[in-house]
């Protein structure tokens, strides 16, 4: 039985995407998206490996990852809560929702829970301006947030973490 380590798996994942574009630089962002989704962060080993596969300098990978809000290298939670802070959501009462969200998750904005379950962040306009306050939890959008709705969304995700743990499930990997 072959023992596949996390590092081997990472190289397989990265190479599989790079192959689609014949190892062209244009696969860098799709690779970073994949790594971020599966491993929740992009550590320095991953950056060096990606650079090696694409034959570019590791600082190029770092420069791109740190540029984009959704590709930040730091480890994030299994579920990333992103609350919109832009004007229409502000008018709709995002400050109150922010306090409720922060309290329900036990996190300040910008923090990740120690068990790796949740991250709470601000985000800019989500294109839900007519039905704010709005937030994304990973790729799922929630609109017209109210106090009970915030509580229900958080409870819902807490139950998922309790059932499956904070790791990204194997079938999604």
């Amino acid at each position: 039985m072959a023992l596949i380590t996390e590092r081997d798996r990472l190289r397989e994942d990265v190479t599989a995407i790079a192959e689609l574009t014949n190892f062209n630089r244009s696969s860098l962002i799709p690779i970073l998206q994949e790594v971020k989704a599966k491993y929740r962060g992009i550590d320095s080993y991953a950056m060096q490996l990606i650079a090696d596969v694409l034959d570019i300098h590791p600082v190029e990978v770092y420069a791109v990852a740190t540029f984009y809000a959704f590709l930040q290298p730091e480890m994030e939670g299994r579920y990333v809560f992103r609350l919109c802070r832009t004007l229409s959501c502000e008018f709709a009462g995002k400050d109150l929702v922010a306090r409720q969200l922060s309290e329900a998750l036990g996190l300040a904005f910008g923090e990740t829970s120690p068990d790796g379950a949740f991250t709470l962040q601000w985000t800019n306009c989500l294109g839900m301006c007519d039905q704010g306050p709005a937030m994304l939890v990973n790729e799922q959008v929630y609109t017209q947030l109210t106090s009970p709705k915030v509580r229900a969304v958080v409870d819902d995700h807490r139950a998922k973490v309790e059932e499956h743990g904070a790791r990204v499930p194997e079938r999604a990997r």
Partner: protein
Amino acid sequence: MTVDTTIDTRVHGLTFAAVTPGDGLQKALQMSRGDIIDLVRDSRLKGRGGAGFPTGMKWDFAAAEKREPKYIICNADEGEPGTFKDRVILTDYADLVIEGMTIGARAMGASLGLIYLRAEYAYLKEHLEEVIDARQAAGLLGKAIGAIEGFDFDIVVGLGAGAYVCGEETALIESLEGFRGEPRNRPPFPVVSGFLHRPSVINNVETLAWVACIFAKGVEWFKSSGTATSTGRKLFSVSGDCAKPGVYEFPFGLTIAELLEEVGGENAKAVVVGGASGRCVPRSAFTRKIAFEDVPTGGSIMVLGPGRDMLEVAHNLLEFFVDESCGQCTPCRLGNGKLLEGVGMLMEGTCSAEYLGDLRALCNTMQVASKCGLGQTSSVAFCSIIDDFGGEIMGHAKRPR
């Protein structure tokens, strides 16, 4: 409690709902490539993303380029605060968008189309790919479309990663190529040297859907609404302090007062037209027309009710730009931060009239010296607030933040 995740945008009377996908492409496929471009030029369709560049001219430039392959890119990086009409179009009328891309590809000789979808709309990717697959299966994409030998065209969806500046077309190209989304110097323009340094046309989602409608319903139909220089109709994303927010379609040339009446925002104090990069129009100017030649917009209308604090508005918009500036050029990277600091001083009542004058001058510098549209427009709303609400903002008493 089960959480409702339906996306409940109210949509009011769109032409797109009355156009059958396929009609436009069928007509275009019977025309020569030159005639397609002439028709788009004749319609005087201007880009619906906000900048308003004539679509026919853009296509003509790309068609004249000899180098291949060529690309047509759909800009679905709808990040302008207060804008959500492209989300609705991509959800309900993706067929028309893809049809517009296909017609464009035929006209300019593009072999590949790319849809650059913002990360915040990742939940639409699967839907778009299904529409693309269905059109492939129907022979509307792929090899020899419409049995025209050599007309091979496919479309792929690329996902953004959370950067407002990537809505700027050269930053979008940088992002597609795997770089930081930092705008390029122009010229060369993308029609000459774009994605992978090949001729590329970048059109907004709504522009492409209108192309399909123009071919389906005719150029005279299109030109019968709007003004002489802003032909046709436009989708508006309406939010803020009004009774009926949602997506609306109006002809260009409508006054702001008329729009407010339709959406139930008659008592507004001001309207932010064009999003964070747009301007803040005071009540005294509600007779102005929404059109490229008067008050232009990519469709964002944020209504400010009588009780809104204009400094809070300026603060929110400038925080946005401080966060979203790519940092490449100095006027934008540092200027937005200084303006935000200035708004903070105004809020605390510690900004002198003289310093406000300095901030005004800084706005001018940013508008002239920034490299791309982000830095050139980020101070516009702040300027309009200084100019039109001077009494209100200078009258701020010191108060805790």
